[in-house]
């Protein structure tokens, strides 16, 4: 009875809504105005039918693009309980009730299709409903017996707060219980959900928000040109009004025509006439060709073999089509470390248990061998050291890894590669994690299978930087195992925890070797404590306000008085070509900043390893940062909180060789990017591979995602996707630079050819009483930009190379021109405009000198001027093109031939006899064409 609209447009609303969206852009509105006026007879001074059709098709083109982007989904009829089958896209925001899987687990593929993220422990709200029962429940049952309270529809994809009152009980709901629209059910046969938000209320649609049109420098300039054209038209209209008022009353032949209308009205009409005549200076084809060139550049990026990574079968990908020229102007590169500079192929290298370091450090190792240390094996076999057993039990228990059995062996699926490396390491040494259910974990400890009851999972957040599990071991004792970053663990240790000093030493040793460290600690929990704590936990879970904070406090309460069990050290090798890439980017004037969550020592060592810093650079850290201006530095982000400090910091960093930001959280990464964007004028580029880099990628002007181990979330949010960090060098120095040059010369030339062509009307208006008499044949105006002069400039935009890719890579310094905006700035565009004004003067006044006081007629003048216009812009493109491929030759020859051919055809008597009104120029082209060539 009640239908929910789940798509953006309906056949009725499509046109108005879409048009409204299209005309957010000033230029589109301008074009609409032009089209309307062409049709409007009293103003139209030329028959631009061809152009009108052309514009209609392009509007349709834009519309289609919009449909694809605007997420058109299938209609779904809302019944309260929705059944979702495997591999089906969820059609509304559902409250997951249960699924057919054991323990009602449910796996979904999150937004944007790529990553399979398993929502861990997506319980139905502890309703022990059997399936048939649930299916039999109708909506009426729910509405009478149960009430769901939920927040107002909003666009926050990852948060949901609500309550379910059912059978007298109150259950709290959060985002883990939600099956959001647009996600896809995986590995789960069927899931049942209660529709919460439907149609345009769903989170994904709310999240889409408004399409923000990014105003680039170019666009602002083009808007200015549109504005000045309007001004010129206005001036000419004033001229027309004056002419009508002062001169034409004395001329009987003219005043007779316009006698019925006042001069002001005539001037008003002439204004619109001149807008039509001057509009070719800013044709729609400029925007279309601009987009087309961008698209071709994106394709070329994808086609580049040198950016194709065979191992993963992934070519480079340009996901955003409007940022190509900005690739050639990048001033700051902000890079993540893990997975971006490094391979994120983690190897468990060393560990420190009870103060002893195990594992052999071999700096020349190529990463083939697994961890092996006879001493540790002995120690474990002989059951000498209880701490080592505890340590590996902790590694096998404290994680969120899922195991999947394949060929009799467990395969681990982890959210982060660290966890996988640690659990795998424990497996190799005999502590095998076998399987997990909702409330238990099964391990095989040196061959004996044990089952641990999972009482609580104190999950990992980037703020807490640790996670813990509370388990009841087979002996019935309660144990808490905690794993996390060294500083957070060290400050939660018991006062008399043994081996503290030796462990800290080991941490330092590991850091020097660029190893990533994690501390593992544990404690026993008494029954009384557990009862009390679990009670508090269930109460906190019911709280509707400040739930997060309450939970955090409780977790804090549990994770104290820990006993240090040991430290793990994981090696993450640098990717191939990273030092070379960073080196040449630095030569190209790009400021490379590395943002990492690692500790300072690790970060600095990685910095040296990847040539970010030279061995003799001076490190500025902490306090020193305030007072000294030196070459390389490392900072604590707390320092840059205040705005004026931010400005000073960025100006300081501009004098530094490179910047390393350590211990930054994902949120802070984005803040750093924001800081650089705010206080420096350069284009920022952020590169990262993981979900924690998404913020940063979205904040920067250009975001680059690496298709890494940590899923493709970064790629999905990025503008460009690469497989390797080293491809960045080619992307920036070759593709970016070429794109920048091509687009700059394209814009200059395009503006030149259109304005020099259109401005002639201004000069002619001085000699025709400001009457909006077109200087050219109307067919010529319609075909000039789209046929006679379009191909050569496209070829220029596609193929132009001022130097080969090899030379651009060999001399990265040439990239500096882009950072300084040397090719495209208000000055250069102004010069191009002046040049085109000069050309238009030549184009008009040379023929005028010849035609003055002669018996040559208007049509001959028009043909002369238009032929000169085609010639001079063709000569200009011949001078501009520095890289003549066969296509360039063909394009120039074709366009010239096309001009002459179509002029002859359009002036043929046959066409005139068929359409006497449209082909009034016939016969004109046989008149000798006087060519006024400019020097």
């Amino acid at each position, binding site marked *: 009875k009640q239908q929910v609209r789940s798509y953006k447009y309906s056949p009725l609303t499509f046109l108005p809504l879409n048009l409204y969206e299209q005309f957010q852009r000033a230029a589109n509105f301008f074009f609409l105005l032009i089209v309307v006026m062409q049709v409007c007879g009293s103003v139209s001074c030329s028959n631009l039918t061809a152009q009108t059709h052309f514009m209609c098709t392009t509007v349709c083109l834009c519309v289609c693009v919009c449909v694809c982007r605007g997420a058109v989904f299938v209609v779904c009829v809302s019944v309260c309980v929705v059944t979702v089958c495997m591999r089906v896209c969820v059609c509304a925001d559902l409250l997951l009730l249960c699924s057919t899987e054991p323990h009602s687990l449910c796996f979904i593929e999150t937004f944007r299709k790529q990553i399979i993220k398993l929502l861990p422990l997506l319980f139905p709200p502890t309703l022990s409903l059997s399936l048939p029962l649930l299916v039999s429940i109708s909506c009426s049952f729910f509405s009478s017996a149960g009430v769901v309270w939920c927040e107002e529809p909003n666009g926050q994809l990852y948060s949901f707060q609500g309550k379910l009152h059912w059978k007298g009980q109150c259950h709290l709901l959060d985002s883990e219980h939600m099956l959001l629209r647009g996600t896809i059910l995986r590995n789960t046969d069927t899931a049942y959900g209660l529709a919460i938000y439907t149609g345009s209320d769903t989170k994904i649609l709310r999240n889409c928000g408004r399409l923000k049109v990014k105003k680039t420098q170019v666009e602002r300039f083009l808007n200015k040109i549109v504005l000045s054209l309007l001004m010129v038209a206005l001036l000419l209209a004033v001229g027309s009004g004056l002419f009508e008022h002062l001169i034409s009353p004395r*001329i009987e032949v003219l005043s*007779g025509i316009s006698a019925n209308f006042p001069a002001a009205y005539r001037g008003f009409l002439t204004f619109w006439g001149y807008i039509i005549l001057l509009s070719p200076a800013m044709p729609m084809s400029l925007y279309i060709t601009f987009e087309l060139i961008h698209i071709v550049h994106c394709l070329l990026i994808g086609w580049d073999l040198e950016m194709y990574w065979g191992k993963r079968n992934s070519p480079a990908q340009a996901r955003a089509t409007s940022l190509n020229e900005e690739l050639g102007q990048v001033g700051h590169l902000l890079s993540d470390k893990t997975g971006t500079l490094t391979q994120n192929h983690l190897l468990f290298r060393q560990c420190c248990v009870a103060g002893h370091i195990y594992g052999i450090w071999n700096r020349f190792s190529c990463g083939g061998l697994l961890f092996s240390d006879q001493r540790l094996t002995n120690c474990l076999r002989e059951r000498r050291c209880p701490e080592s057993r505890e340590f590996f039990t902790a590694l096998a228990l404290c994680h969120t890894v899922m195991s999947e059995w394949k060929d009799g062996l467990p395969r681990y699926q982890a959210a982060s590669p660290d966890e996988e490396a640690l659990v795998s390491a424990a497996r190799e040494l005999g502590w095998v994690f076998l399987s997990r259910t909702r409330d238990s974990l099964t391990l095989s400890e040196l061959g004996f299978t044990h089952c641990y009851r999972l009482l609580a999972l104190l999950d990992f957040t980037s703020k807490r930087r640790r996670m813990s599990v509370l388990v009841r071991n087979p002996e019935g004792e309660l144990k808490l195992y905690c794993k996390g970053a060294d500083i957070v663990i060290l400050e939660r240790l018991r006062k008399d925890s043994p081996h503290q000093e030796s462990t800290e030493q080991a941490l330092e040793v590991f850091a020097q070797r660029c190893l990533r460290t994690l501390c593992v600690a544990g404690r026993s929990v008494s029954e009384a404590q557990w009862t009390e704590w679990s009670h508090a936990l269930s109460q906190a879970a019911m709280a509707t306000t400040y739930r997060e904070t309450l939970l955090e406090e409780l977790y804090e309460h549990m994770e104290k008085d820990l006993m240090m069990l040991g430290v793990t050290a994981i090696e993450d090798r640098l990717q191939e070509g990273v030092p070379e890439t960073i080196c040449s980017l630095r030569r190209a004037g790009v400021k490379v900043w590395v943002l990492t969550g690692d500790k300072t020592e690790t970060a600095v060592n990685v910095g040296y390893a990847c040539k970010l810093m030279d061995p003799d650079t001076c490190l500025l850290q902490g306090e020193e940062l305030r007072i000294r201006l030196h070459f390389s530095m490392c900072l604590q982000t707390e320092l840059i909180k205040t705005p004026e400090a931010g400005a000073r910091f960025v100006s300081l960093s501009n004098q530094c060789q490179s910047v390393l930001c350590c211990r930054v959280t994902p949120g802070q990464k984005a803040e750093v990017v924001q800081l650089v964007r705010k206080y420096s004028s350069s284009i920022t580029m952020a590169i990262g591979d993981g979900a924690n880099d998404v913020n940063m990628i979205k904040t920067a002007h250009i975001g680059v995602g690496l298709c890494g181990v940590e899923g493709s979330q970064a790629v999905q949010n990025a503008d460009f996707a690469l497989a390797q960090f080293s491809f960045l060098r080619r992307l920036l120095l070759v593709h970016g630079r070429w794109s920048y040059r091509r687009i700059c010369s394209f814009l200059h030339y395009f503006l030149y050819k259109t304005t020099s062509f259109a401005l002639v009307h201004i000069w002619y208006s001085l000699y025709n009483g400001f009457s909006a008499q077109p200087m050219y044949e109307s067919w010529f105006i319609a075909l000039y930009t789209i046929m006679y002069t379009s191909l050569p400039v496209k070829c220029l935009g596609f193929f132009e190379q001022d130097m080969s890719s090899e030379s651009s890579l060999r001399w990265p310094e040439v990239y500096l021109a882009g950072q300084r905006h040397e090719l495209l700035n208000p000055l250069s565009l102004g010069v191009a405009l002046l040049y085109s004004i000069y050309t238009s003067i030549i184009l008009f006044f040379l023929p005028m*000198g*010849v035609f003055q006081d002669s018996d040559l007629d*208007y049509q001959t003048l028009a043909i002369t001027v238009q032929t000169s216009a085609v010639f001079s812009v063709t000569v200009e493109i011949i001078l501009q093109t520095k890289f003549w491929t066969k296509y360039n030759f063909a394009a120039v020859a074709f366009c010239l031939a096309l001009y002459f051919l179509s002029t002859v055809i359009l002036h043929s008597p046959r066409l005139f006899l068929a359409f006497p009104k449209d082909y009034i120029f016939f016969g004109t082209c*046989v008149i000798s064409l006087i060519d006024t060539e400019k020097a």
Partner: protein
Amino acid sequence: MKAGPSRTNRPDNTAFTQQRLPAWQPILSAGIVIPGFTLIGLAFIGVGVALFVTSQKITDLEVRGKRDTHAVLFFFQGPVFFYYGLTSYYQNFRTYGVSKDGYQLSGDTYYFNVRAWYSCAPYQYDSNNNPIVPCGSIANSMFSDTFQLYQVVNGMKKQVPLDGKGIAWWTDYNIKYSNPALVNGSFANAFSGTVKPVNWSKPVYELDPTDQANNGFLNQNFLVWMRQAALPKFQKLYGRIAEGDYAQGLPAGNYTLLINYSYPVISFGGTKKVVLSNVSWMGGKNQFLGIAYLVIGSLCIVMAMVMLIIYAKYKFTDDDEDM
């Protein structure tokens, strides 16, 4: 990412996709630019000189004001063309230029009475609502002065024949314009029910009663007028002097021009004149074009010299590195 293991995303290795297309990369070095400029300059100067000299050879005689006797001091090489000229006359005004009906002028009597479009207004109907043919402002404002040229030989006036044919465009009188078919053997009947333009003294079918091929819409003075001038200062061809005694040109002597003055220009500050001129391969007398070519050519030469001096002073040995 969704690709199966069998499908490879490896890009094609072609010159196009890898941007390794063979290309000619011209470098504008001094060795090319300076000789290039010099050559272009010389060519322009050559053309300019040719044009200028040709233009100088053309004789023309302008008659302004109302003096009616003129002396031709030397033999005027034929064929001599007779022009009338107007100034400050905006024949290129947009609304003026569209004030005609092409269908009507192509001889379609249907459009004599039917409004094809409104462009002819207000010269579409007269005060009695009779259709005007030919309608529109251009036709209405047709130049109406007539000229007669006499040579004064021994005090006697000898008429110089002005041929009003062969002065319009071939396409105009063969294709673009045509007369309506005769009705009942009479040309005038074809125009029955229509009236002449307000300013005209005689209807269109009486423009040249002596020659039916030059009558009606095909009258060549009418055609010349209907072809819009490019600029407010223009000349239009009135006739050719190519017959009888004057086929070879006008002999030196005294000539009298008889002007039937009826076309008003004083009101808008315009002037009238009459020009007698002969033509060459480049058209009528026009010194501007030759001068323009000469100026541009010499500019090129000067630029080439300047560049040569700069080049000689600072020899850029590594200018291809700078690109």
